[in-house]
């Protein structure tokens, strides 16, 4: 039934003449260059310099009855071809009739209240080789039906396809996996991800995956509240297995596991302050006994909550200052799985298992933004994210952004990343980013 409705919306309806009276078209886009340089790591297998051409092209079409939006993104890296990607961010048809709104096609959903930690923002797969606290999102096909109810907006989602995230290549300094030199045979490299159905079966050969969810949003008394429930394929915190099916080329394989998520976002304006909260609890589906052909899937139901406080004020004359304080904590994580676990592969074991946990778990962020409020929209941003349990782990950022003329935008900055490996000889997961300090310069032309 729903598949038929999707097919009708995507294929049949747009081809009818009545769908396109009074057609208006609008295009927009950007084209730019990104340069980043990392501090050398004395590892010839990694790429310390990146130079990429990036672009975004969007087309909006609307008629009396229907709207269509399309937005695609590409990045071509001249120095690291594995970083070059093209993907759809949005590409959907929309119909509104009274209190009802239907959207069908690729969409990005943004369910977040905070600026750096996003435990409630769970829907879209990410392009990991981007700003790690605000990764770029890949659009995902879905049918979304929204109606006015319960004093707010209620939206139902059906997602027939689960799009895989784009992980950094093993050449990238932003990588979360580095080839493991076993010393006793072939190196372990990163293989294709594996998907688990709700019944525990594993497969790799197609992307079809039925996912469901709903979200209600209300605004009241200076506040916005959103609550959602989603049953889908988790692609942000995969379980990692060593697949030795082919002994000559052992692979580390990420297992995407089905999960049911209950989450919320809340923002309250109080004078010059904004109080922000968001959180989610995740119940992971496991096969009976937790056993899969690749190995045992651990129990790991857990919740995470982020809190934030934003305070801004205008300076006499010109300029606006904004201070942001945020923190995130994880609770309910199984005691036998350390919270700071990342990929912890032990090649000597027969079928070892690891987890790629959220990068931020017990962290705080303090940020300061100064907007000059000038005609060039010059903005300076400084932020520090520190792990409160392991203060030696931190991410520092300083950047400045400025419009050049009326169509160009330039930004430059520096990022300092410290995630010291617990075992310096075998960095795991995000520890691979340790000391990947970088300077970056981005220039974009909008049209």
């Amino acid at each position, binding site marked *: 039934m729903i598949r038929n409705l999707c097919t009708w919306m995507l294929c049949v309806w747009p081809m009818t003449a009545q769908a396109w009276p009074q057609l208006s078209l609008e295009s927009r886009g950007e084209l730019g260059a990104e340069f980043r340089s990392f501090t050398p790591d004395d590892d010839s297998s990694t790429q310390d310099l990146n130079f990429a051409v990036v672009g975004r092209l969007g087309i909006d079409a609307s008629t009396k009855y229907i709207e269509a939006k399309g937005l695609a993104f590409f990045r071509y890296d001249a120095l690291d071809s594995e970083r070059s990607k093209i993907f759809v961010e949005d590409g959907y048809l929309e119909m509104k009739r009274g209190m009802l709104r239907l959207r069908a096609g690729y969409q990005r959903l943004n369910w977040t209240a905070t600026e750096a930690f996003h435990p409630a923002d769970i829907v879209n797969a990410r392009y990991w080789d981007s700003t790690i606290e605000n990764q770029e999102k890949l659009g995902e096909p879905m049918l979304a039906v929204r109606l006015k109810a319960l004093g707010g907006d209620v939206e139902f989602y059906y997602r027939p396809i689960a799009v895989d995230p784009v992980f950094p290549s093993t050449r990238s300094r932003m990588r979360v996996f580095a080839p493991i030199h076993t010393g006793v045979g072939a190196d372990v490299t990163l293989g294709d991800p594996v998907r688990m159905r709700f019944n525990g079966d594993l497969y790799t050969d197609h992307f079809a995956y039925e996912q469901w969810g709903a979200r209600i949003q209300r605004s009241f008394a*200076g506040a916005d509240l959103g609550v959602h429930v989603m049953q889908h394929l988790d692609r942000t915190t995969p379980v990692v297995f060593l697949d030795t099916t082919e002994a000559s080329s052992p692979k580390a394989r990420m297992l995407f596991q089905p999960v049911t998520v209950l989450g919320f976002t809340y923002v309250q304006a109080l004078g010059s302050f*904004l109080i922000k909260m968001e959180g989610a609890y995740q119940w992971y589906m496991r096969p009976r006994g937790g056993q899969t052909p690749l190995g045992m899937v651990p129990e790991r139901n857990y919740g995470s909550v982020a809190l934030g406080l934003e305070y801004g004020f*205008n300076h006499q004359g010109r300029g606006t200052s904004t201070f942001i304080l945020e923190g995130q904590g994880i609770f309910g994580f199984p005691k036998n799985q350390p919270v700071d676990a990342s990929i912890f592969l032990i090649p000597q074991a027969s079928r070892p298992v690891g987890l790629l946990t959220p990068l931020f778990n017990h962290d705080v962020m303090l940020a300061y933004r100064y*907007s000059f409020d000038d*005609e060039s929209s010059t903005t300076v941003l400084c932020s520090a994210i520190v792990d409160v349990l392991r203060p030696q782990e931190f991410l520092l950022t300083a950047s400045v952004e400025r419009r050049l003329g009326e169509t160009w935008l330039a930004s430059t900055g520096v990022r300092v990343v410290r995630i010291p490996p617990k075992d310096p000889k075998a960095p795991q997961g995000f520890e691979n980013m340790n000391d990947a300090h970088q300077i970056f310069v981005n220039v974009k032309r909008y049209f």
Partner: protein
Amino acid sequence: MNYTAALFLLLISSSAQAATPEERGLEIARMVHKTNEGFKGEKSELEMILINAHGDRTVRRMASLIREVVGEGDKSRIEFQWPADVKGTRMLTWSHKASDDDQWLFLPAVKRVKRIASRNKSGSFMGSEFSYEDLGSPEIEKFKHKFLGDVTVNGRPCWRLERIPVDPTSGYSKEVTVIDQGMMNPVSIEYYDRKGDLLKTGTFENYAQISGYFRVQSIRMENHQTKKSSILSWKSRELGVSLDDALFDSNELDG
């Protein structure tokens, strides 16, 4: 003389007899508000020219929708169209008479609707000499009014009023406004900074009668301290437009 004109004169004469300058100022403010209400909905295209101290000009463009709310502050939605990097950014404001306004920003690049603190309204609007509070809905309750006297501007009788923002976070200590008695709309507003010094002067030019309402077609804002100026002009303006309430729903900003 018809009945409406007689009532109007009666109102003016009764205001002239108000006991104190504060009472008379409040009465005029109410008359101005009363004259300008009832437009239901407004749809307009605007252009803003920013002129720096050297005379260099940059352009901003936006589209605005305003929905009148009876008994409360109006709802407005502005979509930025130029410069290109902010194209598609939308700002939704629900003005309130007594409490802080509700305000949201839609950021198209990340497809995020973000609530923002409306208290910081003295900041510059798009880098211009206009601040957010200059362009907000001037609810009577947000000011203390005082009548300063009768003046003549370009041969037309006007009232001179002082209004002091009630909100202590306003960027101004006071505003002095000159109101054309015939059009019941301002012809100029002087803005004084928190130190009491003259900061800016807004000059309202080219009034046109649209659907029975006098509406300004251009406002020139001159900053006396920085020597910069901005000109906000309306390229098109319709009043009495019926606007769907969904346009002013924060959850619909991404549509």
